[in-house]
């Protein structure tokens, strides 16, 4: 029954029941963590074979005779560029292979634009005044942390079922001080939304400052679940078609495919942006870890190989999503106090509770033994204006732990809503 339709007495009775369940749960003394999108042990075990593909007997030269253990190829092994090109659907010559973190590639790129300008003809962002970034929210907290660190003003943009609110985006980018925008276009973090074709085309086409750049963080480009796959238009091509070839730089990594701490990150960009990026990295490094690049290519071989591996990971991750989604559906559906995403891929489920209740849900879960992502982390400056969004990361805990954690989460969502509706303040727990 919808809580809004309940009498005060019925709400009180419901609260009594929920408190009883809550205390029972708390008495179990569990310590569970659903705070960050970390791969589980099972996922990591599935890729341990990668550690065996290179040893002292391996021919450490590529087909072109490149010694992977020596200097050279600062923009990545040709085989690895091809590998990432296939994953992203772009030609290999548009790819730059970096270290293990796409976040550091993004940081470097923003720093390049900030300190040296986004193009040969544009001023560094730092010299243009109080520059701004558009931040579709809820979004990825580590994106926001980059802007906060550099003092770039962040403007939240509402997320819709088809991606960021494009009316809002198109209006805001008319300000020439808006220099960029973060996008996680497929299985967006944390909402799981994949940008529609129309959204991608509008992003590619909209009128912006010449040195406006989209940080196209395609982190979950092949992270499909349940045997389903969302389709996303290829952004670099769309930008070229729209006459804005420099607009987007695309990023991805194998952090949630191979080893989260020892994967490979890559970026893709058009020729002009790429030349600028290579020029920047030429000062910084003589090249990234080619042995790891080689190992990845030897192990996964090609797009089919890595997709086959993702199917194995899907078999591990999908049941975890099902546990959470099943509990939310069975326990919260129809109560009118929460809504949640049901993504076809990615790493997160986004839960929106009643406005003003997210912090309370976080507190209740913490007190009960379950750690959630900090409330507000999914918004710029850590402030959720509605105090409503909770990011659920179901990949790391075991199925049993997840089932327990979700049970507590559901009770906490109900309790927080009941406290609000009854208007009697926080219940002593």
């Amino acid at each position, binding site marked *: 029954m919808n809580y809004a339709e309940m009498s005060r007495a019925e709400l009180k009775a419901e609260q009594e029941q929920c408190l009883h369940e809550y205390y029972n749960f708390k008495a179990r003394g569990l310590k569970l963590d659903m705070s960050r999108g970390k791969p589980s042990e099972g996922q990591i075990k599935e890729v341990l074979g990668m550690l*065996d593909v290179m040893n002292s007997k391996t*021919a450490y030269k590529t087909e072109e*005779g490149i010694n992977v253990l020596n200097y050279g190829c600062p923009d990545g092994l040709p085989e690895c560029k091809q590998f990432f090109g296939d994953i992203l659907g772009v030609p290999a010559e548009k790819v730059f292979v970096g270290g293990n973190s796409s976040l550091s590639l993004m940081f470097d790129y923003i720093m390049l634009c900030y300190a040296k300008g986004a193009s040969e003809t544009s001023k560094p962002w730092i010299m243009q005044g109080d520059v701004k970034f558009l931040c579709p929210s809820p979004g990825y907290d580590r994106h926001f942390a980059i802007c906060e660190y550099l003092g770039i003003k962040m*403007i*939240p943009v509402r997320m819709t079922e088809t991606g960021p609110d494009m009316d809002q985006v198109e209006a805001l980018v008319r300000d020439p001080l808006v220099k960029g925008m973060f996008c996680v276009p497929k299985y967006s973090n944390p909402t799981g939304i994949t940008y529609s074709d129309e959204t991608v085309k509008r992003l590619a086409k909209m009128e912006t*400052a010449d040195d406006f750049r989209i940080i196209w963080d395609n982190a979950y480009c092949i992270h499909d679940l349940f045997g389903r796959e969302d389709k996303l238009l290829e952004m670099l091509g769309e930008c070229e078609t729209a006459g804005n070839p420099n607009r987007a730089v695309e990023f991805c990594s194998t952090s949630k495919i191979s080893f989260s701490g020892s994967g490979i990150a890559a970026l893709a960009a058009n020729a002009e942006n790429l030349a600028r990026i290579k020029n920047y990295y030429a000062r910084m490094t003589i090249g990234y870890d080619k042995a790891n690049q080689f190992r990845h290519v030897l192990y996964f071989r090609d797009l089919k190989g890595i997709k086959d591996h993702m199917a194995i990971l899907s078999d591990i991750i999908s049941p975890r999503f099902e546990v959470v989604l099943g509990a939310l559906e069975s326990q919260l559906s129809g109560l009118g106090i929460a809504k949640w995403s049901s993504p076809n891929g990615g790493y997160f489920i986004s839960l929106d509770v009643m406005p003003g209740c997210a912090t309370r849900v976080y507190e209740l879960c913490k007190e009960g033994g379950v750690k959630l992502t900090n409330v507000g982390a999914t918004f710029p400056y850590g402030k959720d204006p509605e105090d409503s969004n909770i990011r659920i990361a179901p990949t790391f805990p075991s199925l049993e732990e997840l089932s327990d954690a979700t049970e507590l989460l559901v009770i906490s969502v109900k309790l927080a809503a009941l406290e609000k509706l009854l208007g009697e303040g926080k219940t002593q727990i």
Partner: protein
Amino acid sequence: MKCEYCGKPVKEGDQYCQNCGAKIKGASAASNTAATAAAGTAAPKTEKKKMSPGKIILIVFLCATLLVGVVVGGIIAMFRAVAKSVDFDEVISGIEDYDFDDFDDFDFSDDDYDDSIDKWFSQHFDTDDNDDINDSPFDRSNNGPSDAYDGTENFAPGKTDKKTGAYESEYANLAFQLPASWHVFTDTEIAKLYSDEGVDKSAANNKLYVYDFYAEDSLTGNMVYIKFYNKDYFSEYKDLTAVNDAIRDSAMEFAKRYKVDYAEDSSITLNGEKYNQLACRISGEDVLAYQYDFTRDLGDYYMHIEIFAYDLDDVGEIIDTLNAKG
């Protein structure tokens, strides 16, 4: 007019607050059109207002503060001292002309480069304590037994010409020279092999376990080596069959990931000497390679030649090369 959400001023006609992104109440499609018209149809320009002298000073001050902050938090005191005296504009404009593509053409095998690396290492590390690098017990410049030499009088190492890579060994009855694309391992590189394999230093020094020749083709990744095992030292090798079994076991390491097919054991004659021949094919979706091992009994030693190649024709060419004496 102010944003109802964050309180910052908003311009007439704006649909969304430029500070917090909130929709401005009362903003209509008409005002949107007006805003668009005001912005013009072309892409907004990044042209900036002229800055006041005060603002320029402030920015210069902030940049200087940032720079000093980076330097202080960054590297080391020496860098800091240098940074203060550097004209960064000049440095930056200088490196902007740097051609990234030149990097690919840089010859890292250049002697000067090697020398500079060695110099850097010697400045930064106490390499005297690093036996593997400086005090290699495998330095064959001595070309003979050390004081601890024990029971290997009958072994005579082959000689490799440092310039041409040509190998000659009366003991092994081999004399050949591989094509120019082949890199013949130096003494230091062979010492590294021993080290990687965990070979006891005295065993290597006393020629009980010997890589007499090791080379790789930089074009194909093909490899060939010549190895000797002292029979007393390798007492577990009762006969040549045991050696062959050990070689086969070692090759089966590949079987963890690839399909390994061994042909029936046979024999081959090189320069009039008869060897046992073990041949296998290593195949998988991403690799097809061949490993050929030739072994023979030299009395005090077992001799072992291994060829690893990615093409069967290459194996044939390498065998022809080894058989150069006919």
